[in-house]
């Protein structure tokens, strides 16, 4: 097996709504290697979510082809796609997408119930372990409506990683979080990435993107920029520093790095 996890060739996605058609993606060529940590950036409406849905085997492109682990996704039937979604990919949605009136534990356990490989025996214990990893061991029996936005986001992340996928796709996982919680979430992704999991995440915030290894920027359905992150930061260290300092003093700590990233974006 090669170390290319994702390869897309000239992927386009056109939405036909009434008389006019929206070109959400206009030809995306993207190669992602095992162990990468990519931040996908770009203006609102530039096609980031559309690409994530295609990569997550939730949506099909209008044209172009997509290989995941050297398998042509176009050739797979519905059940094979379901198996890929279940086993290979952990997806964190832009709007959490947790089951309402269902406990955090049961939400996280859900993907394991659809596992057909037979590897995941003790789904309950695995779900609890995943919740512990995102720091929610004490919220196991809470329903989404009883959790804060950040906690819901972490439940969604726990659900994505409970199946131990090789690839995590996260669409704005820090979108609704304050800066401190964002860093906590990023340190989680960094830790997962260190364990060998490939991570793609969409974000608007340059301060979040600097924890990734590579930035891909979108504009109008095309990739405008694709380059490694300079001055990459370690989220765990930033958190540790923030522990020592006061919350107010934390902003300057991460601000310089953010400026660098934004400057890079403009260039």
């Amino acid at each position: 097996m090669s170390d290319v996890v994702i390869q897309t060739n000239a992927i386009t996605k056109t939405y036909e709504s009434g008389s006019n058609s929206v070109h959400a993606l206009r030809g995306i060529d993207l190669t992602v290697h095992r162990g990468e940590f990519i931040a996908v950036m770009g203006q609102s409406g530039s096609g980031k979510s559309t690409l994530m849905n295609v990569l997550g085997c939730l949506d099909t492109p209008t044209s172009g082809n997509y290989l995941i682990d050297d398998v042509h996704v176009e050739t797979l039937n519905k059940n094979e796609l379901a198996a890929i979604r279940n086993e290979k990919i952990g997806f964190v949605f832009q709007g959490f997408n947790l089951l309402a009136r269902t406990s955090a534990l049961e939400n996280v356990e859900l993907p394991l119930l659809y596992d057909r490989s037979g590897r995941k025996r003790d789904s309950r214990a695995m779900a609890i372990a995943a919740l512990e990893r995102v720091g929610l061991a004490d919220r196991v029996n809470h329903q989404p409506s009883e959790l804060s936005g950040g906690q819901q986001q972490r439940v969604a992340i726990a659900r994505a990683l409970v199946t131990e996928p090789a690839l995590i796709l996260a669409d704005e996982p820090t979108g609704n979080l304050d800066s401190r919680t964002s860093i906590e979430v990023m340190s989680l992704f960094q830790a997962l990435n260190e364990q060998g999991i490939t991570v793609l995440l969409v974000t608007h915030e340059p301060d979040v993107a600097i924890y990734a290894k590579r930035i891909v920027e979108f504009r109008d359905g095309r990739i405008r920029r694709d380059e490694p992150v300079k001055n990459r930061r370690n989220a765990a260290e930033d958190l540790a520093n923030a522990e020592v300092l006061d919350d107010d003093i934390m902003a300057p700590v991460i601000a310089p790095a953010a400026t660098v990233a934004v400057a890079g974006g403009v260039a």
Partner: protein
Amino acid sequence: MKLMTLVKLALQAIRKNKMRATLTMLGIIIGVAAVIVMVAVGYGARSRIKEQINNLGTNMIVITPGASATGGVSQGAQAFATLTVDDATKIRNEAQYVTAISPVVATRMQVVAPSGNWRTSINGVDIDYQTIRNWTTSDGAFFGPDDVRSAHTVAVLGRTVAQRLFPNSDPVGQEVQIGKVPFTVVGVLSPKGQTAAGTDSDDVILVPYTTASSRLSGRARIPQIIASAASQQDIPAAQDEVRALVRESHKLTQGDDDDFTVKNQNELADAAASSTDVMTMLMAAIASISLLVGGIGIMNIMLVSVTERTREIGIRLAIGARGSDVLTQFLVESIVMGVIGGAIGLLVGYIGAKVLGHFTGWETVISPVIMIISIGFSGAVGVFFGFYPARKAAAMNPIQALRYE
């Protein structure tokens, strides 16, 4: 997914919408309860009829003219098929397993008494009739062997006839005119009540069969000969014997079919009770229409539920559920709803049948078979009416389902 997980999931979904689920199940509950009550009443009627026929007499065997209908095709021999007094005499003289026998020479005539007149059935019988039918007199006495031998004009009145003809006086010893022949009343029978067919058994006059043949109009026929076997165990042997003797009496040779039918009491009871089966089926069929309506209710709610839970379906599909997983989830949900509804309906029907029986005096019989069938049937209703909504859910595209508002 494991079945247990699916059932748990279904129960959770039902619990989340208690009110709605209850109203949906109400259709099934009413349907099943209606079927249970109808069948209970029908079975009650059946068992009452059987009981009545079994009360007709002791170890009774009935010989009727004509081949039994079981062959389907009616034989030509039937045209000549009549029972005669000679058949009865032959059985009386030669049969070993038969302890009592009496022909029934039947006619209907106008009966006149000084204080009233009445049209009724006149049955010419032998003295054994009392034993076979287990029917004794409450006033006076039955006629004796002498009366039969000499064809005396004596009569025993059924209770109804006695009341009609002699409303204010004791009929015993008085005279009645049957047709043009005057008869002396020697006794009044004890009351028997309704027959299985719903007619009045006490609306009858018994006379010696010899008198009936010789003195009453020529229209008299012998619709049956009744006999008693020595004991319960002897009934089959007695039936065989009677059959052989009547064949002999009718001079039937080896290849000929019987031109008469020999039945025992149980067979008669079954035959009579089977007439209620059609009625029971009909009532159950009408009741099951409400079950059908209940099923449509389930389908309606499942369709609403699928639309309402589109996002949930999208989430499940997005994290790797197959279409078939979603299908079974919704199918199990509607089956669980059907079965719970069926179980509650069973309980309601059971209580309903008991209450109805209590207030109307009707006998109601609830068989375990019908219980199992009704639960199974409501499950099947769940499958049938849940399938379309479940398939609709399973066919969803994950991304469209997730975007659904």
